[in-house]
């Protein structure tokens, strides 16, 4: 009885082992799309060359999953049989729908990436690109214009054309091309301007990935020109406090009434210059003077705000110079520096609160900073005084020591003489 049971166990084990090893022993199905195209030349071979780093290929999708047909058939006609869903190469304006087939299907996309958005096609159709595409424009951007084709990389991959630091160049590949854009009657200097602006310099020169690229303001799939009234909201994505202050200021109603873009009116759009105190008040570089006449109440407020900020800056500068002197003298000034840092924070805050356009508010914040700077200045002055005291003290001590040494020396001489 025991022997029979033993045989049974051995047989079951062998069957289980065979079943488990079956898949690895079976010949892998050949993908004849790849097999055939890799023997070809030029553009027919290119998809095979690029597919190795393609995000779809990495997730196990093959040519037939997008283009249809039967990849298991070696025979040309069988593989490209329209009855088996073969689409072939879609026309340019069909591409959004071609990609959207899967990318608009949440159930399908969840199998690969549960977090991916599936509204790209809908957004695209609402965008300027999508609208022109729907009208049959064969030049307008479609999915592959930005994402590439076959060698598509994820957007977090620094080699991807839509990676944040590469994205502006991708947009510029069409939008900066005068010849390509000649039919659209829109400017082609955006990239040139952006790259010289504060945002472009931060992203492209410093590699600051927190800085905005084109799509940060214009959207990506739903790319469009922000309307004048919406410009403030676009900037507010990052500059939220400034936007809130502006929204509560008298400027808000005036801008709305006159249809003037909020932030852009003073700061520009693509070539947003680094802000400076010269933009405030009067004098060269002033943006206030563009709209407000001398003697008017806003003009006086602008002058007053500038004076508050300049006074604070002056006090900080004086104190910094004294702190540096004290440091050079070897006096510990970390506490003094703390007050100076706080004064600098007040300076930053007062510059932001300029967007309230209230001279009282800016003066109040500047006053806090001036008080802190004066506190720091007082400490720095004491530190320098301490050094001078040390020097005097040193002179006295050295004098006493040398006097003692001289007395001793004379004592020795006198002693040795006698």
């Amino acid at each position, binding site marked *: 009885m025991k022997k029979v049971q033993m045989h049974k166990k051995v047989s079951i084990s062998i069957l289980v082992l065979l079943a488990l090893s079956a898949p690895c022993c079976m010949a892998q199905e050949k993908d004849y799309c790849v097999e055939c195209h890799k023997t070809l030349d030029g553009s027919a071979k290119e998809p095979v060359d690029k597919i190795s780093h393609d995000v779809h290929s990495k997730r196990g999708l093959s040519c037939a999953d997008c283009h249809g047909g039967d990849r298991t058939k070696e025979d040309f006609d069988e593989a490209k049989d329209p009855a088996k869903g073969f689409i072939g190469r879609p026309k340019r304006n069909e591409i959004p729908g071609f990609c959207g087939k899967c990318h608009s299907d949440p159930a399908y996309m969840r199998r690969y990436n549960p977090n991916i958005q599936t509204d790209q096609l809908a957004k695209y159709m609402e965008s300027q690109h999508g609208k022109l595409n729907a009208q049959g424009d064969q030049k307008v951007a479609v999915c592959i214009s930005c994402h590439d084709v076959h060698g598509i990389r994820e957007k977090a991959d620094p080699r991807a054309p839509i990676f944040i630091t590469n994205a502006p160049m991708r947009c510029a590949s069409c939008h900066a091309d005068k010849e390509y854009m000649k039919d659209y009657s829109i400017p082609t200097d955006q990239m040139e301007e952006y790259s010289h602006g504060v945002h472009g310099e931060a992203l492209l020169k410093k590699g600051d990935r927190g800085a905005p690229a084109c799509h940060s303001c214009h959207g990506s799939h739903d790319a469009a020109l922000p309307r004048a009234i919406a410009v403030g909201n676009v900037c507010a994505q990052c500059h939220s406090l400034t936007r809130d202050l502006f929204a509560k200021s008298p400027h808000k109603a005036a801008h709305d009434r006159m249809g003037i873009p909020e932030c852009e009116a003073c700061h520009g759009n693509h070539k947003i210059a680094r802000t400076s105190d010269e933009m405030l008040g009067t004098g060269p570089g002033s943006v206030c003077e563009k709209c407000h006449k001398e003697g008017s109440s806003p003009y006086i407020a602008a002058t007053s705000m500038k004076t508050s900020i300049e006074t604070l800056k002056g006090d900080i500068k004086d104190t910094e110079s004294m702190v540096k002197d004290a440091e050079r003298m*070897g*006096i*510990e000034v970390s506490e003094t520096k703390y007050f100076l840092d706080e004064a600098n924070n007040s300076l930053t805050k007062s510059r932001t609160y300029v967007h309230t356009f209230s001279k009282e508010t800016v003066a109040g914040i500047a006053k806090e900073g001036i008080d802190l700077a004066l506190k720091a200045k007082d400490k720095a002055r004491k530190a320098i005084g301490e050094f001078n005291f*040390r020097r005097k003290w*040193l002179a006295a001590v*050295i004098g006493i*020591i040398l006097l003692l040494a001289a007395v001793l020396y004379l004592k*020795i001489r006198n002693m040795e003489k006698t």
Partner: protein
Amino acid sequence: MTELLIKKIYNWVDERYQVTDLTGFFTKKTVPVHKHFVWYYLGGITLFLFIVQVATGILLLFYYKPTAAEAYESVKFITTKVEFGWLVRSVHSWSANLMVFSAFVHLFSTFFLKAYRPPRELTWVTGSGLLFIVMGLGFTGYLLPWNELSFFATKVGTQMAGAVPVAGEYLRTILRGGDEISDATITRFFALHVMVLPIAAVSLLGLHLIMVQFQGMSEPLSSAKDPVKKTMKFFPNFLLRDLVVWLLILAGLMVLSIMFPWELGKKADPFAPTPFGIKPEWYFLWMFQTLKYIPAKIFMFDGEVLGILGFGAAGVGLVLLPFIDIWARREKRNPVFSILGVFTIIYMLFMTYLAYFGPQK
């Protein structure tokens, strides 16, 4: 009246402890006078700076907190809040460096004057032992402010200790109190700095001074054979001269401490990468630089291990010098030793120069 009282107290003490015998010894003791006389002051200068170290060290102990979390803040507190704390700390740091310097000069002067000749072999042995203790005090004290420079220099220094053959790993772990420089390191460095090494220093210094007093100052070979010997009374003539020199050193120390206060630097961040160009204290630099130039492999041996072994052998050779220089024992001068001494000084200066101003690897 006062004189009478002093005399009474003196007599009272003398009856019990025979002080007159001791003062009699000092009044009879003489110091040879010759053209190299000036070098006799170096030992006294080192002793004076050691006394300054002990005095300022005790004052610092009132406020210093030997933990990784509080050390830097406590030193900052000393320099900013404690009355004259800045001066005490600055004097302690300057005096430490001057003490190492004067100890080296004292060693080389006694070396070239061949003061280690019989019967003063053990004076030399205790003296060279004191030099190592002084360097140990410098090494352990350097970490205590827990600033960036000292933290990483100690990291490099203890790493070098790890290259000692056989016991290197243990030595490094014992020094650090673990795998890394941490709270355990600062507490043990503190214990070494304020207890173990000072006790060792005072004991050895006591022996060294007793030997010097008992055997008197060594006369250099050049004047030992002079038919007419000039001498000076130790007490009070030489001692008063010593006092003048000490006062001048004190004045110099005050100028340095006040005009160039010792910086505290940035607080150490154990998680930060080692800053570029980190160096140990200047008196270790020549060894540090030498190890940089030794190839990684010499035949089948590890270059760094050979370097460490070389320094160890040099240290042993230094201590045993009175027994190696058999010519000096016969009151003769062998130029090989003088050339070796000059070469060592030039080598140490050149390597230190390279460490500061040479190409930074």
